[in-house]
Each structure stands twice: as structure tokens, then as C-alpha cells.
């Protein structure tokens, strides 16, 4: 337990503890407002008040509280300063800043070009695309779960997945980026013998060509899962699909399947030691 407390109280990790608490608290606040709205209806009778003093005083109060928190924090806890930079000596583990630990954790399951470039780009572009993909007129300007279940669920899944990756990267990764429980001492000399296997190999394929073909088929087959669901929607909710259009549907399906690919890959790796699903001479997935 000592070691866990030691990691938790490292100066640069304290924001993570704070973030965890804040995310839980504000999620609770939002959900409670959503529950209230869903049960009793949304209050649409909102009046106007003068900006001065009603808004400015709450802004002033908020800034006072934030400055107080920041000042106490800065007096109590010093920012870290380790040994001078030494290009020939790599610390073990070498961790990215905490907000990038999510990406660093993904490096376990994907190659750098996916984990470090493609996925972050898709996240940023996907986030920007949300308003153009979400055509639900409900839920604008108030908290609700009932009126926009899909949107809230998917976003929360992605949001909490990101937070989870940061937590794993902070507390569960030690020297060599091996998995350590938070209470385990970080053993610099630990070596874990893992024999990873590629998915095509698992299916008995031995030649390069057929492995590549199999991998390509697996990945495209995965993304093609969007097609049967499209047909299903066409039967059950044709009006909705007509408004949405096939382009939007395709983009949403692509992004959603990509996001779900991460926990899926994590599962494949952890449960079956599968390293790559698709092996080609130029890139691996």
C-alpha cells in the first residue's frame, strides 16, 4: 500500500487524483440534472436577469475559489525537478505527461503510427464532427438522458475510456511498461516472458501473402459490420435513416467501430496474447 500512496502523492500525479474526483462529481451533477429533467420535464420558463451583479458576482466568487485553491496548492506542494537532462540515461519507466499517458498506453496494443498519430487525429476530427453527425433536435440546452441516449452513452464511453487509459498508464505501468498492480513495488529487473502471436498465425496461416490477405479480410470484415446494422435500421427506422443519410451513417459507424476496436484489441492482447490482427510488409495493425 505504501507504494500506491507513493505514486499517488507524487506531485505530478496529484492532478490525476483531483481529476478523478472532479470527473465523478461533475458527472454526478450532470446525471442528477438529467434525471430531474427526464422525470419532471424540462423547465422552459426561464427569465432574464441583469448581468451585473448576478452573473459577475458568481464569476468573481468562482475566480476567488480557484485562486485560493491554486495558492494553497502552490504553497503546499512543490513542482518536481529531477536530475539534469541526460541524453544517455533513460529513466525506467519513461512516461509522457499525464494527459498523454492514454496515448502511451495505447502503444501497447497498436504500433506508434496508429496509437500516436492516426487515433489522436481521428479523435480530434471525430470530436469536431459530432455536431454535424448528431441530428437529434432534442436535448439542446438541457441535461437529458432519455432524449438522447445514444449520444450520451457513446460520448461517455469514449470519455471514460480516455480517463481509464490515463489511470492505467499512471498507476498500473511500471519499469519496462510492464503491468504492476498499484501496490506492487516497481521492480526494475522484472522480465516477463510473453510470447505474442499474430492472429493469422493463430488460424494456422504461415505464408506472408495469406496472412496479409487474412488480416485485411478480418479488418474489412470488422468494418463491414456496419452494413447489416444499416439494413436493420432501414427496416425499423426508415425515416430516421433517410434524414441521417448514408454518408453520416457511414462516418458514425466508422468512428464508433474504430473506438470500439481499442477495447477489443486490448481484450485480444490480454486474453490471447495476440499482437497483430493484420500483418503487411508496410504496416501492421
Amino acid at each position: 500500500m505504501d507504494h500506491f500512496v507513493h505514486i499517488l502523492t507524487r506531485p505530478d500525479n496529484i492532478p490525476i487524483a483531483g481529476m478523478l474526483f472532479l470527473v465523478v462529481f461533475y458527472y454526478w451533477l450532470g446525471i442528477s440534472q438529467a434525471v430531474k429533467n427526464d422525470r419532471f420535464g424540462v423547465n422552459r420558463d426561464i427569465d432574464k436577469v441583469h448581468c451585473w451583479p448576478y452573473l459577475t458576482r458568481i464569476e468573481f466568487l468562482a475566480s476567488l475559489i480557484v485562486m485560493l485553491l491554486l495558492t494553497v496548492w502552490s504553497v503546499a506542494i512543490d513542482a518536481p525537478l529531477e536530475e539534469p537532462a541526460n541524453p544517455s540515461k533513460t529513466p525506467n519507466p519513461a512516461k509522457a505527461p499525464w494527459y498523454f499517458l492514454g496515448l502511451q498506453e495505447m502503444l501497447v496494443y497498436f504500433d506508434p503510427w496508429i496509437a500516436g498519430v492516426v487515433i489522436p487525429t481521428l479523435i480530434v476530427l471525430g470530436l469536431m464532427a459530432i455536431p454535424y453527425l448528431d441530428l437529434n433536435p432534442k436535448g439542446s440546452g438541457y441535461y437529458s438522458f432519455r432524449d438522447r441516449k445514444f449520444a450520451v452513452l457513446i460520448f461517455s464511453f469514449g470519455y471514460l475510456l480516455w480517463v481509464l487509459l490515463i489511470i492505467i498508464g499512471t498507476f498500473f505501468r511500471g519499469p519496462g511498461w510492464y503491468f504492476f498492480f498499484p501496490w506492487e513495488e516497481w521492480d526494475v529487473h522484472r522480465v516477463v516472458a510473453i510470447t505474442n502471436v499474430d492472429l493469422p498465425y493463430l488460424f494456422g496461416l504461415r505464408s506472408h501473402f495469406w496472412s496479409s490477405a487474412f488480416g485485411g479480410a478480418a479488418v474489412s470484415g470488422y468494418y463491414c459490420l456496419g452494413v447489416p446494422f444499416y439494413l436493420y435500421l432501414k427496416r425499423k427506422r426508415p425515416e430516421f435513416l433517410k434524414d441521417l443519410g448514408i454518408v453520416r451513417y457511414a462516418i458514425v459507424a466508422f468512428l464508433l467501430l474504430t473506438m470500439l476496436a481499442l477495447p477489443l484489441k486490448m481484450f485480444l492482447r490480454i486474453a490471447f496474447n495476440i499482437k497483430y490482427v493484420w500483418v503487411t510488409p508496410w504496416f501492421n495493425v
Partner: protein
Amino acid sequence: MTEEASRIVSVRKEIPIDKTRGLWVTRRDFYSLSGWLAFFAFLFMATLGTLRFFFPRVLFEPSPVFRAGFPDEFAPGEVSAKYLKSQKVWVVRDEEGFYALSAVCTHLGCTPRWLETESKFKCPCHGSGFHRSGVNFEGPAPRPLERVKVTLDENGQLVVDKSAKFLFEKGEWGKPGSFLKT
């Protein structure tokens, strides 16, 4: 929509204060005053702290004290420019002993030159002229060159301390350290 907001302008009701009990302010006003006082006190202290930030406790400047060789290396009557470039100081020896002049013109801080043939210090910037003693006699310089402390160390070497200054106009050229008798 703004008319509704305009209707709500609540002006504070005047609350009568019971002066017979020695009260001079309502509880609300007292807290309000304390709050604002605390806020401005914080701002004031933050400003002071920020100001103090700009005066570091440790400086990495070269030492003002340097060794200037042995007295025998200087002839009587000589104005030595040996340490002019490195330390901005002239070491001057007359029949009675040593003194050191700071080579900072008292006009605006340029470095004067010693003109042996004319027996004067002349500043190139605005033409200030000083006698061998350091006293100003021509040009815009308002006061004589400053003398700096010169002493002998235990080995008999001359030691000059530029941080200890002696100003003629304050009558300090007689004080110990301003002149080294040999």
C-alpha cells in the same frame, strides 16, 4: 425580453442601526467590509511579493576585489594602466605612496584615457578633463574621479577593492584605505 430584467432592480433597504448599544455597522456590512479588505490585502501582498521576486538573493557577478601586483612593480610618479582593461582602475604611485582611481567618468560613465604628455585624464565622450589626482578641471564632469580602496595583503601585494569608494567632494580622500603610504 430585456423589459423583464429591467423591472428587477432591487435597491438595498436601509436597515436602522441601534446606536444605543454602541453598534456602528450592520453584521452584513461588517462581513462585506472584511471580505473586501481581505481581498485587497491579498492583492497587495501578491504585488509586494511579485516586486520582491525581482531582487534575487544571489548574484553571479565577478568579485570587486583583485590583486594588483607588488609595490615595486610601479615606479614613483607613474600612472599605471595595467588593470585598466580588466578592472577599469588606474593604479597611481606618487612619492608618498599609492592610490587607485576608478576609470568611470563622473559625467556619464565612459572610460577616460590617461594622456601622459599632457598629464591629465581626458574622457572621449564629452571632453571631461581630470588632473593626475583625479580632480576635475575641465569639461562637463561635475565632480572628481572616485578613488577605490587600496591595501596591502600579508604577502606585501597590493589589493584593490572596487566596492569601497572614496569621494573627494565628501572629504573622504584622507580616510584609511583611500591612500597607501609606502
